[in-house]
């Protein structure tokens, strides 16, 4: 087990796990145009930190509980047509602001919110690894199990209903998966950039994909590359991890866009 004593190894393994889950989920987020939902869940998850101070409960549990509750609320709001971009923006940023202020009141001492906002791979312990891999396993199981139905609902609610597939139910499964991903990604990539991790690899992969499955796999490959290299870069040059990962992702996107532009003049 000494292999896992090195925090660098733990960080890589955690990054690999998050990449595997964020790719297919990110594809669904992109296809369903739900980037703002992902952002709202991520920002408002800071309320979980305040909650853990308030109730003196385990931080990871508090965050996961909050993200799940927020995800279900947003799913239901969306089903009723109340989840416009603006409303989600209000929700996301209010949640973040309230979380920051509440944390500063409740913690007594100044808690390092930056580690939550930007990621903190130094803090990934062995138990965190288990939680992350557990979360990833749950996400992949859910997404793969419901993949075809989720695709159908994405393409058309009406067609789905005509074929006895229930959009609200599938949407809830999707949102719960998103909530779990946000909870497990905070230490790797940070709250502010989780949405970026969700959408940049899929959009990059789009240029080269002709099927949804290939796009998810390719996005997975791109995510793994960005996460591993980004973690390595941030350790070497002592830069914030999340931002380093996303910088690499942006670079990949730039390259893929060049391909796309030269392909369709």
């Amino acid at each position, binding site marked *: 087990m000494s292999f896992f004593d090195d925090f660098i190894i733990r960080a890589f393994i955690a990054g690999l796990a998050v990449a595997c889950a964020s790719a297919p989920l990110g594809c669904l987020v992109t296809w369903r145009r739900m980037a703002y939902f992902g952002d709202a869940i991520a920002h408002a998850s800071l309320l979980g930190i305040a909650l853990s101070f308030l109730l003196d409960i385990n931080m990871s549990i508090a965050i996961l509980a909050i993200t799940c509750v927020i995800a279900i609320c947003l799913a239901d709001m969306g089903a009723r047509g109340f989840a416009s971009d603006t409303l989600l923006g209000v929700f996301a940023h209010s949640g973040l602001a309230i979380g920051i202020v509440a944390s500063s009141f409740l913690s007594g001492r100044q808690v390092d919110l930056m580690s939550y906002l930007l990621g903190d791979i130094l803090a990934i312990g062995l138990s965190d690894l288990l939680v992350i891999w557990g979360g990833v396993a749950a996400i992949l199981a859910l997404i793969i199990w419901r993949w075809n139905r989720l695709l159908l609902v994405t*393409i058309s609610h*009406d*067609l789905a*209903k*005509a074929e006895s597939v229930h959009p609200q139910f599938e949407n809830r499964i999707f949102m719960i998966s998103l909530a779990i991903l946000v909870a497990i990604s905070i230490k790797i990539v940070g709250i502010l950039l989780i949405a970026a991790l969700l959408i940049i690899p899929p959009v990059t992969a789009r240029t080269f994909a002709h*099927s*949804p499955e290939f796009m998810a796999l390719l996005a997975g490959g791109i995510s793994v590359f960005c996460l591993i290299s980004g973690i390595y870069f941030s350790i070497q040059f002592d830069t914030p991890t999340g931002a380093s990962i996303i910088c690499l992702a942006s670079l990949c996107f730039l390259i893929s866009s060049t391909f796309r532009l030269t392909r369709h003049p």
Partner: protein
Amino acid sequence: MNAPIASRQGTVLVDVKQVSLSANSRRIIDDINVEITKGEIVTIVGPNGAGKSTLLKSIIGIVQPDSGQIWRKQKLTIGYVPQKLHIDQHLPLSVQRFLNLASCDDANWAQTSIDNCGVTSLLDRQVSTLSGGEFQRVLLCRALFNKPDMLIMDEPTQGLDHLGTISFYQQVITLRDQLGCAIVMVSHELHVVMSESDRVICLNGHICCQGTPQQVANNPEYLAMFGQEAAGMMAIYRHEHDHHHEHHSGDHHEH
């Protein structure tokens, strides 16, 4: 909900009773009573905003009525061909993959449907590159996969020219004969209402009139809705249509 009377229970697929639906404080459909039985072809006509799509969606179960009841036969399989479908530009989807999303137990039937709908040449194409008419054929093919008891089509001939429309209707009749399914169609254009329809329903929020195409063509409510020329248009179409079916001994109309 009371089922239809026992003697016809075997043949009635959907029974719509006094159904009304409002949205945004506007009554879209009002006090609709209609029965769909096995094997019949029903065409719904009406002006824009008449609630035709809403009625279709109520029959399928996509929207719930505010009042009234809809009885459906147990385990009714429905094939739905919607009016339009937009695929997000970020979703790469081939026609083959799109068809695979529909369950089909019978591989032979799937292949037959693909061939009959003229989709064989389209299988490797990306859905976003299809023309309106091509996509319509794919949607129809997909709707047929689970051998539906009832095929519901919302303005299926919208992107087609006159000849395309005629061949489409021939295909629809063949399907009804092969599958024994009921066919419920919304048609926006009057002159393409099939003379083969068993029933035409004129809808304008409420049902103005319904009956055989001949009956409806002469009905004052229908004429009031669409104007006097409308009667002539139906006659013209039927006259042309007679040339394509030897068995169809229709009258020739003076025009």
